[in-house]
């Protein structure tokens, strides 16, 4: 019997830019519906790994399969969604027009307006539909970026330090909003961050990369109960886990 394909399957992936090797023999499997974080030093190849998984960058060697197919084929059907460190909203579009952009590109006309309203409401964006990006705060812009990617319901979310540019309070709130929508939509999430706290708070598993070239150093399973909330964040269990991990990894985390 054929086993069902993993959401993400990375096999012996390496990437070099000329003589500079960025990724070295990375292999990773992510099951459907799993929340996996990738942590490592800044400039250590995390973004490159994510871009290769999304098919935006070609690997030097190795292979990526998304539910059994290469990323370039998968993305045509709106299988994957990218969230970048910056919100990347188009300044000439209103918030709602920005959120609708993927529908236009994927030719999903006649998308029900109620679903758009509902999603904007979930993310606290109601009432700002006709605002232009420059009129929105940083946190709100990032929420709009989240709404834009969630609207077309990608099976796989690739997030590259999505909350790296917002203040800590907003970031914590956005983290929990992300968990809420993840539980609701059953997406698979690959989340790049340099914050160990954030990774442990959110994920089922945390992939720790070494830097230059990036290799997989450890894959940790986080067995904190779900759903996770503010209480999780304040619990001794969470703090112990973060401390224990940090000591074992001897890596710095920004917190």
């Amino acid at each position, binding site marked *: 019997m054929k086993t069902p394909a993993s959401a993400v399957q990375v096999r012996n992936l390496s990437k070099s830019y000329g003589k500079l090797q960025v990724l070295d023999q990375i292999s990773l499997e992510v099951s459907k519906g799993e929340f996996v974080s990738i942590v490592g030093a800044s400039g250590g190849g995390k973004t490159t790994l994510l871009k290769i998984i999304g098919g935006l960058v070609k690997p030097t060697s190795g292979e990526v399969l998304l539910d059994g197919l290469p990323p370039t084929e998968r*993305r045509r059907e709106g299988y994957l969604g*990218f969230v970048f460190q910056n919100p990347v909203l188009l300044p000439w*579009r209103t918030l709602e027009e920005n959120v609708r952009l993927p529908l*236009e590109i994927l030719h999903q006309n006649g998308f029900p307006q109620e679903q758009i309203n509902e999603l904007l409401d979930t993310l606290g964006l109601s009432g700002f539909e006709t605002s232009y990006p420059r009129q929105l705060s940083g946190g709100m812009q990032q929420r709009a970026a989240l709404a834009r990617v969630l609207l077309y319901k990608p099976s796989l979310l690739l997030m590259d330090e999505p909350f790296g540019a917002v203040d800590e309070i907003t970031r914590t709130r956005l983290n929990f909003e992300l968990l809420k929508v993840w539980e609701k939509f059953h997406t698979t999430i690959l989340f790049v961050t340099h914050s160990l706290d954030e990774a442990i708070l959110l994920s089922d598993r945390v992939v720790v990369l070494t830097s230059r070239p990036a290799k997989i150093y450890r894959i940790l399973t986080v067995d904190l109960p779900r759903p996770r909330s503010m209480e999780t964040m304040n619990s001794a269990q969470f703090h112990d886990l973060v401390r224990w991990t940090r000591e074992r990894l001897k890596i710095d985390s920004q917190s």
Partner: protein
Amino acid sequence: MIPAAFFVAACCLWEAIVRLAQVPLYILPPPSAILSEIVEQNLSLLKHTGVTMIEAIAGFAAANLIAFALAVVFAHSRILEKGLYPYAIALKTTPVVAIAPLLVLWLGTDMRSKMVTSALICFFPVLVNATRGLRAVNEEALDLFESLAATRWQVFRLLRLPNSLPYLFSALKISSSLSVIGAIVGEFVGANSGLGYLILVSSYHLETPALFAAVVAAAISGIAFFGVVSWVERKVLVWQEPSEV
């Protein structure tokens, strides 16, 4: 309001100096003489202004269309840009005044030669700015489009084109006033109507008030054209912060 007050004050000063120093009319007419010339000659002045503006607008429109089309090509092909860009620069650095006699020779003294001089002078700013605007798209935005398997046409229509508009409008504002200059330069070389013709003929006959009237008409036309383009810009670029003029 303040610029208008300064203008009125300057005119009064001018009028006073000319009258007190008894400067002859053909050297420097007072503002009152220029104004009465404008009022007296309004129909003929309007006709000449109309001719110049038609030439300017036609040149402006043609230049923008061609320059923008070329910018689209440049934005998509580095090879074509490298191959053709030096010629665009050569075109820009060659003074229009130098080419204008040739154009009149080839196209005659009617409006066509002036449309071309006007187009030549408008061409470069639009080409440069539109190319830059089409190119200067956010890398991450390109990634976003690619992650959705957007086609080249979608990237152009939904990303590059709107991204180029602010750049394009700064160029259009520059070339709107240049287009009037281009038309007048063309008229200097050989014409039988238009503001350039009027200026030349008035200066031959030492009809200095008429010359000034033509200069005023040319200035007003240029400013008006610039104003119209700025107005369209504000209507189109609604998402932008209102900018200082």
